C-alpha cells in the first residue's frame, strides 16, 4: 500500500491531487452538455481565448476568474458577431477569433514582467499549487457545480429542444449565456491542473465517454464526473511514480478509458455492435428490433 500512501506525505502532491480531481469532476459535468449540443469546438475556443484575460487579471492583481470571464465574453461576442455579419461559417469564425486571442495572450505574457511562467499557464502547474490557488479552485468549482446541478433540467431542455424551451417562456439565449459563462469559470479551475492547452480534453472526453455508455442524461451526469475523477486520481499517482507530466498523464488516462468504452461499451461499443450484428445474422429466427438499426435518420 505504500505506493498509495507514500505520495500523500508530500503536501504538493495532496494539493495537486485535490485540484486535478476537483477540476476534472466539474469539467466533466459541464462536458455532458457541451458534447450533446455540439459545442466541443466552442469549448476548445473559449478555453484558449481566456488566456489574455487571465494574464491581464494577473497584471492588475484581479482574480483570474474575472479576467477569464471577460475574455470568454469577448471571444463569444466576437465569434457570434463575425458569423452573423459576414458569410463565414461558425467554425471559421471560431478558428479566427480563438487563435487571435490566444496569440494576444502569448504576447502579453512575454512582455509582462512576472514570476508566472508561460509554461505554467500553457501546461498547468500542479507542483506549485499555493493555498490561494487551492481555495480559488475549490470555490469556483463548487459554485459552477451548484449552478449546473440546480439548472440541469433547463440546460438539458435547451440542449435537446431550444424551440420548446422558448415556447414555454424560457430564454434559450440566457441559458446559452449561462453555459458559456460556466465554461469560462470552469476553464479557470482546470488551468492550474492541466493548463490552457489540455483544458479542452477535460471538457470533451468525459462527456463523450459517458454518452457512449448510457441512453439516460441523468446517468450520464453521474458517469462522466465519476470517470473523470477516477482518471484524475489514477493519472496523478501514475505521473508521480513515472515522474511524467501530470496534466498529460491525467488526460491520457481519460483517453484510455474513452478508447476502451468506444470499443466495448455494452450498448454503443464498436466491437459490441459488430458481435451483436454477427449474432443476429447467424440466428435462425432473428426478429430485428426497430430500436437498434434502420430507424435513425
Amino acid at each position, binding site marked *: 500500500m505504500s505506493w498509495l500512501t507514500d505520495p500523500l506525505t508530500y503536501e504538493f502532491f495532496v494539493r495537486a491531487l485535490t485540484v486535478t480531481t476537483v477540476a476534472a469532476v466539474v469539467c466533466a459535468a459541464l462536458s455532458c452538455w457541451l458534447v450533446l449540443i455540439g459545442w466541443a469546438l466552442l469549448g476548445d475556443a473559449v478555453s484558449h481565448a481566456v488566456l489574455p484575460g487571465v494574464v491581464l487579471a494577473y497584471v492588475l492583481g484581479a482574480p483570474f476568474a474575472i479576467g477569464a470571464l471577460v475574455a470568454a465574453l469577448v471571444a463569444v461576442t466576437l465569434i457570434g458577431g463575425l458569423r452573423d455579419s459576414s458569410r463565414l461559417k461558425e467554425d471559421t469564425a471560431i478558428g479566427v477569433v480563438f487563435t487571435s486571442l490566444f496569440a494576444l495572450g502569448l504576447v502579453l505574457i512575454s512582455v509582462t514582467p512576472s514570476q508566472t511562467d508561460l509554461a505554467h499557464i500553457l501546461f498547468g502547474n500542479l507542483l506549485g499549487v499555493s493555498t490561494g490557488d487551492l481555495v480559488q479552485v475549490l470555490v469556483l468549482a463548487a459554485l459552477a457545480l451548484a449552478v449546473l446541478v440546480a439548472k440541469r433540467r433547463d440546460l438539458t431542455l435547451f*440542449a435537446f429542444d431550444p424551440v420548446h424551451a422558448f415556447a414555454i417562456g424560457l430564454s434559450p439565449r440566457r441559458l446559452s449565456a449561462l453555459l458559456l459563462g460556466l465554461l469560462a469559470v470552469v476553464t479557470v479551475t482546470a488551468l492550474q491542473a492541466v493548463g490552457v492547452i489540455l483544458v479542452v480534453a477535460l471538457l470533451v472526453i468525459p462527456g463523450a465517454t459517458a454518452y457512449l455508455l448510457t441512453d439516460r442524461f441523468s446517468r450520464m451526469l453521474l458517469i462522466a464526473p465519476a470517470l473523470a475523477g477516477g482518471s484524475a486520481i489514477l493519472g496523478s499517482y501514475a505521473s508521480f511514480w513515472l515522474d511524467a507530466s501530470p496534466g498529460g498523464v491525467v488526460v491520457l488516462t481519460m483517453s484510455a478509458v474513452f478508447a476502451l468504452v468506444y470499443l466495448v461499451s455494452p450498448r454503443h461499443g464498436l466491437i459490441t455492435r459488430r458481435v451483436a450484428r454477427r449474432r443476429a445474422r447467424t440466428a435462425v429466427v432473428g426478429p430485428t428490433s426497430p430500436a437498434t438499426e434502420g430507424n435513425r435518420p
Partner: protein
Amino acid sequence: MTPAVRVEHLEVRFGDILALTGTTLAVEPGRVCGLVGMNGAGKTTLLRSVLGLVRPVSGVVHVDGDPPARARRAGGIAYVPQSEDVDWDFPLSVRDVVATGRYAHLGVLRRPREADRAAVDAALDRVGLAALADRQIGALSGGQRKRAFVARAIAQGASLLLLDEPFAGVDTGTQHDLTRLLRELAATGATVLVSTHDLDAVPALCDEVALVAGTVLDQGEPAAMLEPASLARAFAGRPGA
C-alpha cells in the same frame, strides 16, 4: 370572440430574403387550421412567428388577444418540431421528453410534483405510448415519435398547438391516429395550427385552410381551398420558392 391566433400585415425578412409579406391570418379557438403550401413557402416561418421566435420587420401577432410572450409564459403554446430538427440520439427517454411539457408550470428547479407525474402518465396513455415510456426517444418508429411530441403538448396543457409538417415521413395508420388525436384536442377547445404540404391529410383534419406562398393567399373552408383553381395559385410558385 377573440381569435386564438391573429396575424396582421406580417412581414418577415432573413437578411436580404423576404420570407413573408402582407400576411394576415385569424383562427378562432377550437379550430384546426392547415397551412398549405410548397416547401419554402414560409409555413415554418409563419408558425415560428406565431410562437414569437421570429422577429418580424412589421406587423402584429396576437395569441388570445395578447403578444405571444404572455401565452408562452403561461405554458399556453406547444410546438411540435419537424423530425429533422430533433436530435434523435439525445439520451432522454420518451417519458423525459414528455415531462418537459410540464416545465412551464414548475418552479425554478423544475422539480416535478406528484400531479405533474400523473399528467405525464396520462398524456403518455392518451397517445398510446405508456408501454414505451422508458425507451430512448430515438428508439421509436416515425409515428410514435410524432405521438411522443403531441403527448408533450398534452402534458403541457397547451391551448394552442403548432405542428410543423407532422405527416412528413409517417405511414397512413399514424396519419389517421394523429388526425383523430388532434381532432379530439380541438373538440376540447384547443386551437391547432398545422403546416403540411400533404394535401391528402387536409380534409379529415382541418376545419379551415390557409394557402401559404410567401404570404397567406387565401383562407377558408378546406373544400374551397383545395379546388384546383385555388391550389394552382399556391403551388404555381414564386421565383425561387
